[in-house]
């Protein structure tokens, strides 16, 4: 179901514009997780992808879309891993950097550098479906889609990750970390974190 194969098929059908739609989901997924195609780099990516967010340890940096790229210089054996912060001041970046270096050192890559990149700016739209499920199970309400790149729509209800009720209320627009807001469920009375659309 990749956009490439869809387009390829279309051309094979004598110019019929049927498959013209590039799969938006596939494009977004590729942007969110640009896993290298090169085998050596993919192996490094998969190791780095096991590093978890220290603030939300059920999510890997791959789930989050924080892992942006891996380059491997075959001649020198040096590895560069690119990550992007969720928020400009996110202090978890230092811990992630540390953990990436640690896991790669442990797997025989001695020359590792981690580079923080700012563009393209991170968005919660890059959170994987699996990551969203893991968040909910962890007790954090997952972010909804951002609306057309504009401002965050706050009119929509946030579902309680514990009892599933939509009858919830925002307690505070800012929560325990930059990426979360604090809510309370009106039905089960539990307070919970919501991962803000960003």
């Amino acid at each position, binding site marked *: 179901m990749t956009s490439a194969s869809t387009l390829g098929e279309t051309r094979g059908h004598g110019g019929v514009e049927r498959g013209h739609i590039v799969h938006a989901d596939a494009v977004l997924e590729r942007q969110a997780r640009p896993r290298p195609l090169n085998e050596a780099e993919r192996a490094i990516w998969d190791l780095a992808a096991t590093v978890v967010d220290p603030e939300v340890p059920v999510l890997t940096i791959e789930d989050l879309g924080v892992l942006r790229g891996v380059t491997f210089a075959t001649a020198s054996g040096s590895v560069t891993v690119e990550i992007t*912060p969720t*928020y*400009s*001041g*996110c*202090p978890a970046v*230092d811990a992630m*950097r*540390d953990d990436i*270096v*640690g896991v790669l*050192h442990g797997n025989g890559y001695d020359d590792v*550098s*981690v*580079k*923080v*990149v*700012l*563009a*393209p*700016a*991170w968005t919660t739209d890059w959170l994987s479906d699996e990551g969203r499920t893991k968040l909910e199970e962890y007790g954090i309400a997952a972010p909804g889609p951002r609306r057309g790149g504009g*401002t*965050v729509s706050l009119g929509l209800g946030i579902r309680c990750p514990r009892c599933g009720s939509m009858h919830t209320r925002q*307690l*505070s*627009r*800012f*929560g*325990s970390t*930059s990426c979360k807001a*604090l809510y309370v469920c009106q039905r089960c009375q539990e307070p919970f974190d919501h991962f*803000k659309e*960003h």
Partner: protein
Amino acid sequence: MIPTTNRSASTALTPEAIAESIAADETVASEPVALYALGLGDDALVLAHRLGEWITHAPELEEDVALGNIGLDLLGHARSLLTYAGSAWGTSEDDLAYFRGESEFRNRQLFEQPNGDFAHTIARQLFASVYFDGLYRALRRSTDPTLAAIAAKATKEVDYHLDHSVQWLLRLGLGTEESHRRMQRGLDAMWPFVGELFRAETGLPEGGVAHVPLDVTDGGTLGGVVVDLEPLRSAFDEIVPRLITDAGLTVPTVPFARGGGREGRHTEALGPMLAEMQVLARAHPGVTW
């Protein structure tokens, strides 16, 4: 500026390392661009520190968290901007933050104003957020890719900060007689420093920057490196008085102060603030914590 623990010599966690990685990417700022980034970085750094002073002092726990979070975002902007500025001179963000004197800081004076009561802080934050919002939106289309990337990241965050200020402006303005009185007093106290926000950048070497203004109204065109502040002032003059009126308050008529923050002229509030912010780094040069 974020405390870094000295976990291991081989793991590069220091701001210097971030500076190195920026430098390795061949993104060294030219002198005029560095001066521009330094001004914007100082705006963000000084306001971040002021917001940090609220932690454990805010009227409610949620506001401790909110003001701390906003400050953290601003500190993030400051770190990026100062690191980039420092790339021109081979200085780190910490050198710039901790080892410059009062007259070397280039922040506009609004950001150094003392917190006052909560309404003073909200007034300062409202003006600051409207300014940052317009500035970073425009700067996203700077021809300097590093500035554009920092701005693209900051825009999303500042949008949320602005919303926070507006909600408090309305709540305090339309609240009790006392909250209304204090909000008005806060607006009046901060208003003199609004004028300087939109005064053109100075101190940049002539001809060094492509001073073609960025047209903030047209999504397509892209002119130069720095943001033309005139359109931002028009937007501010349209938005802010309307918000103040909606909150049942009066648009202040107090005259603007002389300004001069970008040239290193500051109000008496900055010195004591810097003394507190810099004391640890100066008492123990090179310390990490």
